[in-house]
């Protein structure tokens, strides 16, 4: 009985402390740019993020703004997810570099943008080079392969709980999860993975956390981290002759966990 009382008291006190923390510091996450075809991904990503935060009494606040040029208005955000052209993404990163708000690129695979290596700029969408490297690895091990392309995601992918994510997305949106949708979902989940692990973190500290500590479950088997360029290390999927054929890093061409065999490694001088 006494144990029960103690537990009760403790839970009550913890609850009060949690409430005080919540009102003091909501975490704002902003989506910047066109949401065309992406509302489903924003919804699923944000809802899954909120569920995780709710269990820990951490409050999240989601906003959207269709104009990528408005980045400067969100200096109070904890993270800004940008869907835009390479110039728009770079401009957003510049506009938020002083408060040091992390900017997550979900829309462009531009290689050059990766060589900019701005401290607060992170790339969730795979670079064009990352995709090309994956195709090259596949061709090396499958010399007769035709019509090969690499993707960030595939609606028929089932391994590593990809089946579960595909099912959730289908159920919530009635659509198949595209590469772009996956990147948006991943951005929301990645930001909140950092926030729930570091609920007291300033945006600047989140940038450090992304670079040094984050281990994000991309639901592609190997956890993701960021490399020097700000590019997210991730596994890719190989589609050959219109069908899901395998994963990259491609066994035989690279070790299956060697994510650095894919993508942009160097910053511009």
């Amino acid at each position, binding site marked *: 009985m006494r144990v029960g009382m103690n*537990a009760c008291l403790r*839970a009550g006190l913890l609850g009060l402390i949690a409430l005080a923390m919540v009102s003091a510091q909501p975490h704002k996450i902003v989506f910047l740019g066109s949401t065309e075809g992406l509302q489903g991904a924003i919804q699923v990503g944000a809802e*899954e993020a909120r*569920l*995780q935060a709710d*269990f*820990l009494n951490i409050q999240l606040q989601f906003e959207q703004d269709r104009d990528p040029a408005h980045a400067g208005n969100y200096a109070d955000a904890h993270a800004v997810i940008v869907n835009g052209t390479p110039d728009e993404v770079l401009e957003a990163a510049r506009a938020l570099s002083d408060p040091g708000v992390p900017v997550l690129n979900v829309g462009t695979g531009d290689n050059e943008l990766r060589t900019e290596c701005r401290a607060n700029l992170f790339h969730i969408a795979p670079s064009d080079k990352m995709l090309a490297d994956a195709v090259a690895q596949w061709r090396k091990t499958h010399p007769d392969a035709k019509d090969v392309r690499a993707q960030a995601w595939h609606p028929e992918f089932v391994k*590593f*709980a990809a089946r*579960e*994510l595909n*099912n*959730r997305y289908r159920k919530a949106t009635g659509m198949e999860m595209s590469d772009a949708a996956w990147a948006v979902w991943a951005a929301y989940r990645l930001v909140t*993975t950092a926030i*729930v*692990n570091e609920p007291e973190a300033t945006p600047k500290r989140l940038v450090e956390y992304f670079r040094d500590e984050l*281990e*994000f*479950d991309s*639901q592609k*088997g*190997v*956890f993701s981290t960021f490399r020097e360029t700000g590019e997210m290390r991730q596994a890719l999927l190989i589609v050959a002759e219109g069908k899901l054929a395998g994963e990259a890093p491609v066994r035989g061409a690279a070790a*299956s*966990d060697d994510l650095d065999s894919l993508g942009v490694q160097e910053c511009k001088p």
Partner: protein
Amino acid sequence: MIRTLLLAAVLVAPLLAHEPTHRLFVTNEEDNTVSVIDSRTHELVKTINVGERPRGIGFSPDHSTVYVALGDENAIAEIDSTSLELLRKIPAGSDPEAFAVHPNGHIYLSNEDSGLASVLDPKNGEILAEVKVGIEPEGVSVTPDGKRVMVTSESTSMVHVIRVPEHTIEANILVGARPREVAFSPDGKYGYVSCEVGGEVVKFEVETAKIVARKKLRREIKLVKPKGVRWGPDGRIWVATGRGDVVAVLNADTLELENTIPVGRRTWGMAFSGDGKTLFVTNGLDNSLSVIDVASAKETQKIPTGGMPWGVILDD
């Protein structure tokens, strides 16, 4: 006279304690079967066609019944552990994956695609409670005192601590990426969680839900993906490391890695023999069950199973 004997038999039968059969029961996810193997001779006793996508497996408190979660049939199958007959299937909510049987006989199970932990009374098939947990709930364990049930949610990276019998969430413990299972020290003081994608084992204090130690195994074990975790008969923590293709043995206090035992590919399910001398682990990509001698920490044999063996339990 005969009538009296029959009557006596009817009266006595339910009172007879279940005698251990020393049989291993292995769920084969790909084949939709359960392999029944004699744990002493390592011979296949029977292959039971159980239903679609069998994964989680466990005994009733008296071991007379084997329960099998059938993910694609939204049901729990009941098998008589002596006659090996498939008795019936109980509706168990959407996509049951793993479960634990409470000493009171209730089945606590995770419904993977609906984010729920459900409490099922197998006697009447009634769902007694549903608790909303995180995304992709997976491993379910009951504390030794039966007062708490812990459910991991893989995509929310948490252990949810549920009070019994209130069925309210008492705490949520944020751990590494993709937590799969929880094991407890026999005194119920500590819980040990395997985090598959994080490649780590996290130790927490049950009473306070505070993390007290964590150990990343990636440096020592290539491609490590911890799944099965057990408090071993030697007081160490035994971990099936998935594509690490080894069983890892950790110090229960510090979580330091003390030993690795090479087994087959993608090792997940684990069962110790009653005498604590032998460990059996499933190798999902080799369609086999490794037999490990606990004292020498060596694999002594691989027993063939069905396709993609997932879980294993032993009636010992």
